[in-house]
């Protein structure tokens, strides 16, 4: 008997939104000097949710100046402990408003409420909480070096985890003593704007965080602004390269979290049912809009038919539909543009000769949807194996030996993440140590934590976010030796140490 589920929609009564959002600059809401506005759309309903400002160059300049002023006059002079206490406040207020943030996140971006409620929002709060504690402990983070803030950080974030990425960027930057200008993605600005309200409520000094909305041009103007000391970007490898090029010769520091095409390797000695869950988690979590998604399945030949059979059966049970429904597994594709891109790859996969398998689920009439999809019989040279699709689409390949699996897994310009499934501990360790990727999940997938560094090898980016390693991109390190020498000479000169 097939399972049926009654609708269980989350109420949106707590998600009170304004019709229109200006820019959050210098602690205030301001109208864009550009005079331009754009709509943000609910991708599950194709309905406008609100109108947001489209920041132009003047607005970017205004925001960077506000951040610089706040850095010099307030934030860099504040005792580290007080900085930390602001971050703790923010973490707590995110927790208090968790339901509202989750609802708005799911409406604005199309992700299932179960994910925004259980993953995005709690992790965002956890990030602020984690880095809050670092603010007054930086002297212990870098042996032999004193950590100094860089100044103003320009932070450009993607649409797949809007609030969580804002937290990933802001928390370490502020803890280290920097101020920030944050630009959320064009299609998902709302939770960052709610975060701005939280920052106001937390009485964060004006200008310490400025949030400006807009598209690629706004991001470009922000990254290029001469008043910026550091750029943190999460997004596509293509745009990451444009940013790296734009920053050449400027002496701005940068971190790039870019694309991926991770291999999820299932060995013949894996626990198959667990592996199936892990594969589903790896590629269908957040509609596959995940840079570290396990978008390539490499399965050992001896178990391939069995695993694929189980996988097909599991895919058939996935519920695709209303992001606000608590039963939903796969929500709406984030935007029409992204849906077109995924559909283009479905066409390419078919042309390349893959067998395409899709769930037989029904899709809602309105909105942007994509059925969970497998490309079976994919080859290493296929574009659907080489290129990042960023959708609920999995390319399946087989292998005979572990060496072959590792060679295939590493045969990509990307190197963000990877997975390995085996019940043999030694094998899991061996495979994970040979994958050229920044995050490896062994017998699990798509787990995140504020204490856990995240970031890519090769063309998946530069630098790490999260954990102790995630502080480094936001500080300049000075040798204690010289500071001590300076202090001594000050004492000799009769000054205060």
């Amino acid at each position, binding site marked *: 008997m097939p399972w049926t589920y009654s609708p269980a929609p989350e109420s949106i009564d707590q998600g009170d939104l304004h019709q229109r959002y200006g820019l959050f600059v210098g602690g205030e809401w301001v109208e864009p000097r550009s005079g331009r506005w754009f709509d943000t759309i609910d991708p599950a309903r194709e309905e406008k949710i609100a109108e947001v400002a489209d920041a132009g160059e003047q607005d970017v300049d205004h925001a960077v100046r506000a951040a610089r002023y706040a850095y010099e006059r307030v934030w860099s002079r504040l005792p580290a402990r007080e900085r930390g206490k602001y971050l703790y406040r923010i973490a707590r207020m995110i927790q208090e408003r968790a339901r509202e943030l989750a609802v708005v996140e799911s409406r604005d971006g199309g992700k299932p409420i179960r994910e925004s409620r259980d993953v995005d929002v709690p992790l965002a709060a*956890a990030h602020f909480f984690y880095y809050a504690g670092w603010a007054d402990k930086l002297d212990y983070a870098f*042996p*032999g*070096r004193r950590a100094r803030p860089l100044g103003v950080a320009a932070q450009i974030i993607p649409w797949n985890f809007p609030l969580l990425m804002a937290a990933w960027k802001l928390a370490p930057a502020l803890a280290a003593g920097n101020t920030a200008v944050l630009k959320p993605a064009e299609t998902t600005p709302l939770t960052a704007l709610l975060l701005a309200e939280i920052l106001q409520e937390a009485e964060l000094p004006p200008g310490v965080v400025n949030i400006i909305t807009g598209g690629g041009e706004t991001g470009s103007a922000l990254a290029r602004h001469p008043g910026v000391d550091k750029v943190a970007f999460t997004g596509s*490898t293509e745009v*990451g*390269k444009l940013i*790296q*090029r734009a*920053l*050449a*010769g400027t002496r701005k520091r940068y971190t*790039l979290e*870019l694309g991926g095409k991770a291999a999820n390797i299932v060995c013949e000695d894996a626990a198959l049912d667990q592996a199936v869950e892990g594969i589903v988690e790896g590629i269908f979590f957040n509609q596959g809009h995940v840079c570290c998604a396990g978008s390539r399945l490499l399965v050992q030949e001896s178990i391939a038919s069995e695993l694929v059979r189980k996988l097909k059966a599991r895919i058939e049970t996935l519920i695709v539909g209303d992001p606000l429904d608590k039963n939903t597994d796969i929500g709406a594709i984030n935007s029409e543009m992204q849906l077109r891109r995924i559909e283009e790859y479905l066409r390419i996969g078919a042309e390349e000769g893959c067998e395409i398998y899709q769930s037989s689920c029904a899709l809602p009439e309105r909105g942007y949807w994509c059925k969970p999809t497998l490309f079976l019989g994919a080859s290493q040279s296929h574009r659907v194996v080489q290129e990042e699709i960023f959708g609920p689409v999995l390319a399946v390949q087989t292998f005979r030996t572990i060496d072959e699996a590792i060679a295939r897994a590493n045969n990509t*310009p990307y190197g963000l993440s990877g997975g390995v499934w085996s019940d043999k501990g030694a094998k*899991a360790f061996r495979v*994970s140590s040979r994958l*050229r*990727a*920044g*995050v*490896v*999940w*062994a*017998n*699990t997938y798509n*787990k995140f*934590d504020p*204490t*856990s*560094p*995240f*970031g890519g*090898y*090769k*063309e998946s*980016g*530069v630098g*790490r976010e999260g*954990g*102790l*390693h995630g502080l480094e991109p936001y500080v300049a*390190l000075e*040798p204690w*030796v*010289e500071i001590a020498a300076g202090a001594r000479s000050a004492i000799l000169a009769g000054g205060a140490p």
Partner: protein
Amino acid sequence: MTERRGRRTVTEETPDRSLRGEPEATGDEAAAEPSRLPVLKTYKLYVNGQFPRTESGRYDKLLDAQGRNLANVCRSSRKDFRDAVVAARAAQSGWAARSAYNRSQVLYRAGEMLEGRREQFVAELETQGMAREAAEAETLAAIDRWIYFAGWADKVQQVWSSVNPVASSHFNFSLIEPTGVVSVLAPEESGLLGLVSTLAPIVVSGNTCVALASSRFPLTAITLGEVLHASDFPPGVINLLTGRRSELVSHFASHLDVNAIVWCGEDAAESLRVQEESVRNIKRVVLRERIDWHGPHAESPYPILDTVEVKTTWHPVGS
């Protein structure tokens, strides 16, 4: 050597000609008895554990202050660089797979070899125009610097890896791993200390590299290659080229199988070019400008961190 040094006190201004084998001007003594014709040393490249000539057949004359030719130095081509990258790539996984203890011993062994060739390096630096005192200071500091980094091989992981207290039921840890193949534009002004201070932190973590030697001190780099060759470095871990920076810098930055570039220099235009070309495959770009290689900044483990990646692994805990 001691004898020659003794004579030098008399002829302070005379550069050491012994490398090119010209009889040293020692007055009547030379005229009185015919001196032995010295054997000249040919300076070639050091690639894949061998000493090939440049495939291009080109050379540059290395002149001393008096305009006399010290050596015909190989003028490496793009092809030489690409061959060296192939060697470095082939050597990388094996070198990284060595135990940290083993890498530490290999580096230490090279330090021993350096110490044994001390006088040769001093003489060679002097021949290339460095004052004797500076050459001695440079050589001693370089040996000590090499030993300093040798000791980091099995410690850097302990200081910079972490076990991360994640909230879920997982054992989660972050390790550092080598970035891969690194191209190096060695410092111009410091032919041995600068070169050693640049190479050692790259290879100690398990990277392999291809370096373009200083054009002022190319001979030192090749002699260093002999030292590396005589120690236990596997072929291809360190590859040393000589040639013209202006010709090669773009290739060093743009090669798609190079993961990081360490650029030492002062020229802003060249630095910009390196940064722009590196975008092609998102190389890690390390810029070392105006470094005092004798100063406290040069001797720290932080340069090692410039060419490593952090890998985080999650394992479930429980059944």
